């Protein structure tokens, strides 16, 4: 339908850009090294969760961040993915590692079907309908025989030591994250990214200047759902017990939106920043303040971020960059002769 074609960018000095890239690579190497040699189960498992959420947030970011379609029902596809591998295991004893792509596919198909009516809705309506759809699918999962209703599905834990299991998922999700981030980066730097932003800013105008908005939204949504479905499929193996309430929990959708916004929606870096910020803060509070006060502190931090870091971390960064880059001369418009 359309090819990805990277478009030239021209801002910023090359040296600074190189430094930033180097920093990203260093972080990645550091994380890989920790995955290999780290022995703290809790940290490995927390980071694996961080990576998983970062993947989800990146996927959300495609349509939600760039396209402005705030999907409040991401967990629908996550749950569908989880149940796909869960059911395939339950009935055919296929390992979720094998069936995760199938989970992605099923989620993508669900995304296409659900997207058909919902992607025509705008703004808050879309957000709310996606949320309602989660509830509907959750009820299906509660009622269908194949999902075993409220009882849920148990998957066997992998026959490895707890540390090895967490290490495995650490790398699985880290790898997935790198992959997905590359996809998002490519989208941001291609015409599709521009088209998505155009849709966010003024969808009718985008259609009129020639963007096939329906197809673009569909395709991007399907890709996003695929990623989320794969993640959900792997999650099922990791948690080893899926049931409707937790697997389709609205909290997951909300958390993903939260992470995207706090990191900076519509930038490829946003999810990479937002997911760890939110999860690590929450985890740190959980283990240091064990009473329900931990949530109070957490919420205060969230509120403060919302109040004082508009546009998320990346918003602050780009504002700072722009303020630095802008020479006063730039401002005056003088038309060409």
């Amino acid at each position, binding site marked *: 339908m359309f090819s990805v074609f990277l478009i030239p960018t021209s801002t910023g000095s090359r040296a600074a850009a190189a430094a930033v890239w180097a920093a990203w690579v260093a972080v990645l190497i550091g994380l890989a090294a920790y995955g290999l040699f780290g022995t703290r189960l809790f940290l490995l498992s927390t980071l694996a969760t961080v990576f998983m959420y970062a993947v989800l947030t990146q996927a959300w970011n495609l349509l939600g961040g760039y396209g402005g379609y705030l999907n409040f029902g991401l967990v629908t596809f996550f749950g569908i993915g989880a149940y796909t591998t869960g059911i395939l295991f339950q009935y055919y004893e296929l390992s979720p590692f094998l069936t995760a792509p199938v989970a992605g596919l099923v989620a993508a198909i669900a995304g296409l079907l659900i997207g058909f009516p919902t992607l025509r809705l705008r703004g808050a309506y879309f957000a709310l309908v996606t949320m309602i759809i989660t509830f509907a699918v959750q009820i299906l999962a509660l009622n269908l025989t194949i999902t075993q209703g409220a009882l849920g599905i148990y998957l066997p834990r992998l026959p490895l030591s707890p540390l090895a299991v967490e290490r495995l998922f650490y790398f699985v999700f880290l790898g997935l994250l790198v992959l997905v981030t590359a996809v998002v980066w490519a989208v941001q730097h291609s015409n599709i990214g521009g088209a998505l932003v155009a849709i966010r800013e003024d969808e009718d105008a985008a259609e009129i200047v020639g963007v096939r908005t329906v197809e673009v939204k569909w395709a991007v949504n399907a890709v996003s759902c695929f990623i989320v479905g794969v993640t959900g499929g792997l999650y099922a193996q990791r948690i080893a017990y899926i049931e409707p309430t937790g697997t389709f929990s609205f909290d997951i959708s909300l958390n993903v939106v939260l992470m995207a916004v706090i990191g900076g929606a519509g930038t490829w870096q946003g999810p990479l920043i937002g997911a760890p910020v939110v999860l690590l803060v929450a985890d740190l509070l959980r283990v240091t303040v064990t009473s329900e006060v931990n949530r109070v502190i957490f919420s205060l931090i969230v509120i403060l971020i919302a109040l004082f870091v508009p546009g998320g971390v990346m918003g602050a960064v780009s504002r700072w960059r*722009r*303020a630095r880059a*802008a020479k*006063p001369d730039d*401002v*005056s*418009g*003088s*038309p060409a*002769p």
Partner: protein
Amino acid sequence: MSGLFAGYVPGHPILRGVDLTAQSGRITVVLGPNGAGKSTLLKTAAGFLVPLRGSVMLGDTDIGHLPAHRHIALGIGLLPQGRSTFPDLSVYENIELGGWSMRSDRKRLAAAVEAVLTRYPHLRELRHRAAGSLSGGQQRAVEIARMLVPDPTVLLVDEPSVGLSPIVARQVYQELRALKAEGRTILLVDQDVRAAIAIADYVYVLGSGRNDVEGDRSAFEGDLGAMVRGWLGV
């Protein structure tokens, strides 16, 4: 206005030292290339932007730091560039809201709305239509009417004739003349150089956020083309 600095991003002024005086009861025209800062100037005068430096004086008071809604109370009305109707409200409701600042005195408000509708009878016919369903020009007329409801003494007018058909545009300029005749002070920004200069008492030209040329109408009337080329530095 003197030594005015204003802008949208901190540390990033668009207006850099503009001096401008709109004589009371006169039409002062501001011209300039696209992006020169004309609209920014009007927005600052109307209180939408806070001057970074310099002052906006109304008579003897500095109004630069007052919020926008106080400006209305002081008799300053703004006709912004672009479109600014309330699309889902009826034309009548749109115009009525122009008198928001008089809301404590319902009788006066009703009378003022009535007066405006009498002044623009074609709007009376449209008064039950949703403003968003009107054509571009009709909406512009609604905006002008809305601005006049509180009976402002200072009018800040940004490209009033854009999108209006020639007849109507001419009427608008006549209207501006008439408003001046009623003793109002008008600060007019326009790209229709000819028409603007034709009704101007005094003309400023902005370039890149600074004063460029200024002078009486007579100074501009002569060789229009040359003047235009003059600002562009061609």
